[in-house]
């Protein structure tokens, strides 16, 4: 299988198109032929990360990398950054505003869901300078 690399733009506060990047990533992975369980795990991570950029990240981008042994998602944004990363991973903790909460976001489950679904996760964030989230999935006979 050839390596694949695709970049997607994510716009801040664009709730109309929110989720489109994740749907496109899901569609690409289905087209490649990964097994449905792996695609669902990647989709959870893609969606939670995409919504984090939409709600907190300012504008940002997603990078999908597929190589023979792994799938990697990298979300980079220019937003406000995360003050306390350990706290951000605590289930139930959220900085979402009222509008987000009324829409059913801001349950404080985004990063915990990503951690649960991914094989590896690396996060770099500096307050006022944005966040980079690197999410890895190992491939071991995950086709079909």
């Amino acid at each position: 299988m050839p390596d694949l690399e695709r970049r997607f733009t994510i716009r801040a506060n664009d709730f109309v198109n929110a989720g489109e990047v994740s749907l496109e990533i899901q569609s690409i992975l289905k087209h490649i032929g990964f097994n449905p369980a792996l695609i669902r795990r990647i989709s959870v991570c893609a969606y939670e990360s995409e919504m984090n950029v939409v709600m907190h990240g300012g504008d940002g981008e997603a990078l999908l990398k597929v190589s023979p042994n792994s799938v990697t998602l990298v979300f980079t944004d220019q937003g406000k950054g995360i003050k306390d990363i350990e706290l951000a991973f605590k289930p139930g903790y959220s900085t979402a505003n009222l509008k987000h909460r009324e829409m059913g976001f801001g349950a404080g489950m985004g990063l915990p869901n990503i951690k649960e679904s991914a094989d590896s996760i690396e996060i770099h964030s500096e307050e006022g300078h944005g966040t980079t989230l690197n999410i890895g999935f190992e491939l071991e006979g995950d086709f079909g």
Partner: protein
Amino acid sequence: MNVRDIQGLFHLDVATGEIGLEREVKGGYCGDLLSDVMANAMEGHIWLTIQSHQNIVAVAVLKEMAAIILVNGRLPDENTKAKAKEEGLPILLSSSTAYQLAGQIYGAGIGKTEV
């Protein structure tokens, strides 16, 4: 049982996504917090919610759910309907509460033997 069976059995209106009515329903989930649904709903589930904005479509499609049922008489936004139609995802409508309808669907045998 498929989505059409549930629609007929409980007299639900179809708001959009008729093309997906033959999908098999393997279980169900109730929730209005999208990340909770992302974490806990499963493939083939029917999702009962009061959220009617278009972001519910992406959640259902990404989790490969069978259909969404809007409860409490909620109606989908126009762009929710358009997006669901595009994705072939049925959105059904019920005037019941999530509690009442989930009880009825569970009583019909959906989700009881879920692994």
